[in-house]
């Protein structure tokens, strides 16, 4: 039995509303919804731009496991190791060079507003710097 999930398109800033049509846990198509800005219309990215979630590996592939570079090579590790290693390295650098030696980015893409809020809070409250920015400039 399929289901329809209403969401906002992941591409340009027009904020189009669309339904993702899901069957057996996979997205099979999208349908335009009657949003404030798109009024039942979608462009070709809105119609076909969901397929990356099926990971067809045309250009690159989905990341499915944390990795740490060991002796120059990226190796898959468990989350616990990835988190504690990252936290340790950041803490070391902060202790040695100060909080302003660390830069973080927000993301203007898929993560959403809440993830950006958490990121800037992390940089400001946990690291102690205002060195946070994102590709709005690029």
């Amino acid at each position, binding site marked *: 039995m399929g289901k329809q999930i209403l969401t906002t398109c992941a591409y340009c*800033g027009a*904020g189009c509303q669309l339904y993702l049509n899901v069957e057996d846990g996979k997205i099979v198509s999208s349908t335009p919804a009657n949003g404030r800005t798109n009024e039942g219309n979608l462009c070709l990215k809105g119609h076909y731009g969901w397929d990356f979630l099926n*990971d067809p590996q045309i*250009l*690159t592939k989905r*990341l499915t496991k944390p990795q740490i*570079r060991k002796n120059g090579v990226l190796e898959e590790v468990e989350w616990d190791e990835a988190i504690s290693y990252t936290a340790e390295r950041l803490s070391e650098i902060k202790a040695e060079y100060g909080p302003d*030696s660390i830069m973080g980015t927000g*993301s203007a893409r898929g993560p959403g*507003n809440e993830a950006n809020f958490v990121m800037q809070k992390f940089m400001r409250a946990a690291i102690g710097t205002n060195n946070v920015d994102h590709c709005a400039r690029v």
Partner: protein
Amino acid sequence: MSMGIPEIENAKLLFIFGYNGADSHPIVARRIIKAKQKGAKLIVVDPRITESARIADMHLQLKGGSNMALVQAIGNVIINEGLADQKFIEDHTNGYEEYKEFVKKYTPEYAEPICHVPAEQIREAARAYAKAETSMILYGMGVCQFAQAVDVVKGLASLALLTGNFGGPNMGIGPVRGQNNVQGACDMGALPNCYSGYQSVTDDAVREKFEKAWGVKLSNKVGIPLTHVPHRVLEEKDEKKKIHAYYIFGEDPAQSDPDLNEIRETLDKLDFVIMQDIFMNKTGLHADVILPSTAWGEHDGIYSACDRGFARIRKAIEPKGDVKTDWEIISLISTAMGYPMHYNNTQEIWDEMRSLTPSFHGATYEKLEALGSIQWPCRDESMEDKGTPYLFTGGKFSHPDGRGKFFATEWRPPCEVESPEYPYSLSTVREVGHYSVRTMTGNCRALANLEDEPGWIQMSPEDCDKLNVKEGELIRVFSRRGSLMTRVLPTERVKPGATYMTYQWWVGACNELTTPYLDPVSNTPESKYCAINLEKINDQAWAEQCIKDSYESIRKNMGIDTAKKEV
């Protein structure tokens, strides 16, 4: 944007400046067509014959990099021909006399040789803009991605002040922003100078509010902008002022930023690079840690559209693999570093943000559920406050005295211009079927089938004849910083001497060529102008093989088993 997207179709005149809606926002471009159908006049200022230019009443096909001269010449005509709205100027603005004095020398005749637009056409455009009942300016990266960008934005705003095109519906000035949530990342405070809702980090009262809420002392020193990172890594001599660690979240600077050689050097020189993303990408090749996260479609949240409209995104499917949401990953690192952060869902985060951000306070999840979309400011939680379709109601601006400020300054040419060695200009642009760094659209079968590597360079038929190259032929493109191969696309839409490449290709990556020069205020790079040269490749079979090999090696680097799967 000072207005909402739906208002575009009701403006009496659209003044479209360096914005190619058909390629970057097709659903916004639809409103431009509807406006035309409803009888609006269309003036397009663009160095290319864009789709909007094709249906425009007037197309000012200016030379790239001359925006400021043109904008001020329009202001000059409006004043000289008595078309300014004196009452609006008196009641709602500051700095008019200085502006008037400054733009005196920017006559259409003065601008003509800079802009390559006939003086008479500048006059006609100025008259039409000033005389229409409601005029709306839409602008895009053709304004912002220059080393003189903020000046032009203020110059365009000055035209709207001059003619009273602020404060009511179907007017104003609208930067139509490129990415789905670039507005949102700014709204949430992913900026070096402000917290959520554009609250300044240097404002003591604001900072104290956040310190109290977060239980920690916060820095009052404005952070560094992203585009300063290469300099702070490669050039900075003082170890204490250097950037040593870079936490890159949902971005791919090794593809999207200018002068990729410099970016790669930067990433390699850093002590510690964290890459948090959904796909392996070029930045990941330089990372020390890779943290895999959920993608759009796999998590909940809110995006901000370019017209300040908040709207929900919703989880549709379960993610595959051992991945976490971005906010959970960040919270775990924070906790491990001794600053505990824990949230159960995005609504908890949003509610914390709302409690600290007056201008977004009223945009609750419940209200978004009921209304679908809310344009900020939305201050009150009651259902009566449905947000704000357009800003500056009644001509009240956000300066402390409520008045809009005029701005004028000298035009500056682009930082790197054509020379005998590099006789062509290059501007980076978008195309409709692919997106940004292309990890998403490049992995959608329908979209990849429409267009794939190595991409195209748009050139005038005259330049193609001169170089003896034909459509589809591979050509070498090089600048002072790098070199690549791409396909020739002859088109009448561009002027001789000017070329254009879309920036999402990995083999034909135009950011190998672009300059790292920045606007001094916004720190946006000058992606719309650099000098290049072009060279015909005689052995096309060899060139085709190079492209094929290069694509294959990229896919291998990204971890794809290329032997197993056909492209």
